[in-house]
C-alpha cells in the first residue's frame, strides 16, 4: 500500500507564527518523503534549536531535536552507526552557521551521506529576532536596536570551501522547487547542503516574501513585480561535475559556484549550485579499512552469546602484550 502524506505527519500542535516560511519548508520536506515513498521508520530527522528546530515534532518519522548548533554531529553519529538510516539534518542559520559553524565546516570534510537543510531567515527567530550570521551588514530588521555590525556569511561559498559535494539553495514559498531540490539532496551520495531562504514575518521585516518577490520594484512597462529570486537551471547553469579528472571542468564549475554565490540583492539565485558525486563518502573511506562496515555497521553488531557472555575475542590483542 502506497504511503500517503498523512503517514508522514504528527498531530502535534504547530506553534510557528502565522505566515512563517517554516511551514513551506515542512510541507515540502514531508511531501518529498511521501513522493519518494521512504518508510517513515527508516528516516531520522535531526534538528538544532530554534523555531526551525521544532520541525521533527511535526514529522511522523524518527525525530531528534538536539542542541543549539550541534545537529550535525548528532546526525553524523547516527548515520555512521547505521548507514542504512536515511538521515536528514536541519536547523536555523544561527544554529548551523553561528554556534555550529565549526561542525558545518568539518562535516564538509567527511562527506557523510546525509542531507542538511538550513532555514535561512537572517535572524535568531526563537530568541526574538537578533541578527543571524546571514544578515547583511548594515541592515536593521525591526527588533535590532542598531544596524547589524557584522558582514554576512555566505553559506554557499562556505559549503564549497568546506567540501560539501552537493550545494543548493531554495525558497520556502516555492514548494515545488524545494521538493525537487530536497529529493536531489537525499538522492545524492555524499554530504548535501540546502540553504533555504525562509522569510520570518515576525522579525525580519527586510527579507520578506514581498521583498523576495520584488513587490517594491515593479517593471515600468508591465507594472508587474520583478522577483529577486531566479532559478539557476533556467539560465542553463549546469552544476554537475562530470569528469573529476578534468581539472578544467572542475575549475570552471568551482568558479561558477563562487561567482553565483556572490549574487544577492536584486538577483538571488536558487537551485543546485554544485554537485560532485565522485568524491568518496565517509563510508567508502571506512570500507577501505573495515571491509564489513556496511554489512555489520556499529549499530548492528552482536557481541554477546545466548548466555550474555561477550563474544569479542581478545586472544590476539592479549598476545601482543603477553609476557607469560
Amino acid at each position, binding site marked *: 500500500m502506497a504511503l500517503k502524506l498523512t503517514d508522514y505527519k504528527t498531530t502535534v500542535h504547530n506553534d510557528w507564527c502565522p505566515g512563517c516560511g517554516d511551514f513551506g519548508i515542512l510541507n515540502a520536506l514531508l511531501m518529498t518523503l511521501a513522493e519518494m515513498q521512504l518508510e517513515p521508520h527508516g528516516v531520522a530527522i535531526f534538528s538544532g534549536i530554534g523555531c526551525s528546530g521544532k520541525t521533527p515534532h511535526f514529522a511522523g518519522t524518527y*525525530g531528534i531535536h538536539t542542541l543549539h548548533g550541534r545537529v550535525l554531529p548528532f546526525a553524523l*553519529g547516527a548515520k555512521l552507526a547505521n548507514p542504512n538510516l536515511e538521515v536528514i539534518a536541519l536547523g536555523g542559520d544561527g544554529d548551523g552557521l553561528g554556534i555550529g559553524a565549526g561542525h558545518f565546516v568539518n562535516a564538509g570534510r567527511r562527506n557523510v551521506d546525509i542531507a542538511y537543510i538550513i532555514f535561512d531567515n537572517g535572524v535568531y527567530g526563537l530568541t526574538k529576532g537578533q541578527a543571524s550570521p546571514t544578515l547583511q551588514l548594515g541592515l536593521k530588521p525591526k527588533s535590532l536596536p542598531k544596524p547589524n555590525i557584522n558582514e554576512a556569511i555566505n553559506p554557499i561559498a562556505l559549503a564549497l570551501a568546506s567540501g560539501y559535494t552537493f550545494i543548493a539553495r531554495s525558497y520556502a514559498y516555492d514548494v515545488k522547487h524545494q521538493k525537487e531540490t530536497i529529493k536531489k539532496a537525499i538522492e545524492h551520495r555524499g554530504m548535501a547542503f540546502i540553504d533555504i531562504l525562509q522569510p520570518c514575518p515576525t522579525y525580519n521585516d527586510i527579507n520578506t516574501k514581498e521583498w523576495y518577490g520584488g513587490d517594491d520594484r515593479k517593471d515600468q512597462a508591465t507594472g508587474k513585480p520583478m522577483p529577486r529570486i531566479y532559478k539557476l537551471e533556467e539560465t542553463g547553469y549546469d552544476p554537475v561535475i562530470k569528469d573529476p579528472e578534468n581539472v578544467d571542468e572542475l575549475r570552471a564549475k568551482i568558479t561558477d559556484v563562487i561567482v553565483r554565490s556572490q549574487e544577492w540583492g536584486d538577483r538571488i539565485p536558487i537551485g543546485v549550485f554544485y554537485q560532485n558525486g565522485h568524491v568518496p563518502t565517509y563510508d567508502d573511506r571506512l570500507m577501505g579499512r573495515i571491509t564489513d562496515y556496511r554489512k555489520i555497521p556499529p549499530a548492528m553488531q*552482536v557481541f554477546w552469546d545466548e548466555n550474555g557472555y561477550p563474544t569479542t575475542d*581478545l586472544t590476539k*590483542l592479549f598476545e601482543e602484550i603477553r609476557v*607469560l
Partner: protein
Amino acid sequence: MVASSLSWLIGGAQGSGVDTSANVFARACGVGGLQVFGKREYYSNIKGEHSYFQVRVSDGVVRSHVDRVELLATFDDETAVRHTRSVVPNGGIIYDPTLIKTKIANVPTLETPVILGLEEYLRSKGLEPTLENLLIDAKNSGVHLYPLPYNELLHVIGKEIHEESASILQRMVNVMAVAASFALLEYDFETLTKAIRLTFRAKPKVVDMNIHASRKVYEYFTTQMYNKSFPFKLQTIKTDEQRILVLGSQAVGLGKLISGCRFQTYYPITPASDESEYLEGHEVFDMKPPALTSQVMENPQVEEVAYLNSKGSVVVVQTEDEIAAITMAIGASLAGARAATSTSGPGFSLMAEGTGWAGINEVPVVITLYQRAGPSTGLPTRHEQGDLRFAMHAGHGEFPRILLASGDVEECFYDTVRAFNYAERYQLPVIHIIDKSMANSNMTVPVWDTKKVKIDRGLLIGGEEIQKMVASEGLFRRFKFIENGISPRVKLGTKGGMFWNTGDEHDEYGHITEDPTNRIMMMEKRMKKLETADGEIPLSEKVNFFGPAEADATILSWGSTKGAILDAMDILKEEGYRINFLQVRLIHPLPSEYLGYVLSSAKKKIHIEMNYSAQFAGIVREKTGIAMDNFIVKYNGRPMSSEEIYYSVKKVLAHPEEKRVVLTHGA
C-alpha cells in the same frame, strides 16, 4: 642478596626513547616471571624536556611506585642531575663518564628552583655544583657508581655490525642502559633478548642490533666486575600464570572492545587519546563463533550475515572538538551502537551540555574521563583527582548519571564493561572516571578472564516486541511512565518504534510539553532510575574493602591511590598496625548506607585523596553526615607513592591533631 623488590628508574630527553627502554626492562622482568609496576612522568612537550619511567619489580604483587630509587640508569646528564639524590645508599647509578663535567646551572631544561636547590646542597658540602660532585657526594653516602662509556662501545659495536650511521647507533643507548642494569642485577641474558624481540618484533634488524649491543654491554660490565659490588640481584621465576603487561589506557581500550563498544569518538588530548589511538589501531578484531539464533529475536534488524561473521569492528572518529565528540557518540547510541567518548578535564568541560541532553533523553553513553591536573590546561601531563565534583555535577539542571571510579589498571578493564551495562540498563550517561597516573602506568596482571563479565543491554527491544506493544497499547511511548523509571527503548530505524527526542521537557512520546504535572512525573521518572540502580548494583561493584573488619583506623579513598595505599598497608601490617581501607568505586549514586555503616563504627577515619580540597570527603559528608578525622592530600601533579602514604598515615596516627597532611614528593 636477591631483591624481593627493586625500584629502577630510567630517564632522558623526551623523544629519545625512554619509554621504549622502560618497556624493554619491564617486559624482560615480566617474561622472567617477575611482576612489575611502571610509572611514566613527562612534560607537555614533544622533544627535549626531561621524561622518566620508573619501574618497580618484585617477585610478588606490586601495585605502586616508591620514591626511592635503587638503580638509576642514565645516558644523559640531566637524568643523573635530577635523580641522583633519590638513589638509596648501596644503590647504583649508571652514567656516561664523558658528561660528568656538566655544571648544574648549565642544564638548560632544569627549572631554576631545582638548580638553586642542588647548588645550595653541594655548596653546603664545600663542593662546586657539577654533576661530578653530585656523583661523588652520592658515592660518599654509599651509592655505587658505574660509568658506561657509551660512545666508545658504540664505536666498537658499529664496526662489528657494519653500521656507520652515528644517528642509528645512537638510538641504542637506551637499550644499552637497560642491558647495563641487567648486567648489574645478574639477570638472565636470554630473557632480555626475548624482551627485545617482543618489543621490536616488526623490525628484525633493530632486534639484532640491540641484542648485539646488549651483549657488548653485559660483557663490558662483567669484565669490569661491576656486578660484584652491586648488592641487588634479580632472578627469573617459574610460574604457570599467564600474564600481560598492560597500560591503563590499553586496559580501557580492551575493556571497550569486550564491552561491545563499536563507536568511539575523541578529540586529541593528553592523557586520553592513547586509548582512542589504540582502538583505531585495532579497529577490526576477531569474534568468537556465531551467536545463536535466539539473538535474532533480540536484535531482529541484524542481517543474517552478522551472525556468521567472524570479525567485529569499531569505528573511531576524531571529531572537530569535544562537543562534537559527545554529541556524535550520543547520535551513534540512538542508532543502537554501544558508543563512548574519551577525554580529560578541558574536553569534558565542553561536554557538559551534551551530557545533560543524554540525561533528559535517557540515552546510554559512556564518557571515559582521564583526569589530569587542572584547572584550565593546568599541568597537562600530570596527575590529579581534581575533577570528581565536576564530573558529578557537570551540566545544568538535574538529571541522573552514574559515576564509576576505577582504582587500578585491572579495574579499568572490568569496570569499562560495567560502565556500558549501567549506561544501557539505566539509560543514562555513565562517566567512568580515571586519571593520568593510571592511564600511563603499566602493570603485569594475569590475562583477563572475559567470562567474568556479561553484557546487559537492558530494555533495548526489537521489532517484534515493539509491534506487540503497539498492538496492545497504541503508539510507542519511548518515555512511558514506569514504576522503576526505565522504559523500553528501540534503535532508530526500528519498524513501529518511532519516537522523538528533545532537550526540552517532553511527554511520554518525546514531544515538547511545559505541562507542570508532566514535568513532575518526568523528573521523578528520570531521577527514580538512580534509586533503581542503587538498589540493583551489587555492593561488590560499588566498593572494595581491604584489611581486617576490626581495625584501629579506616582509610577512605577512591581511584588510583588504591595501589599505593595497599602497598603501604602491607608494611604497616607487618609493623603491627591494624588498618582497613574502604575504596569506593561507585561515586554516584553513592552507597551511602554502607559507607555510613563502615565509617560510623571506624575508630579513626583517615581520608586520602589526590586533590586540594578532599572533594570526595565532602561528598561523603554531604551524603552520610560523617566527617573524616584526618586528611592526606596532594596536588603537586605527581601521584602518591606508597612511602608517602606509609609515613603520613603513621604521622596522623601518632599526631591526631595533624588534621591535614599535604604530600609533596615526586619529580
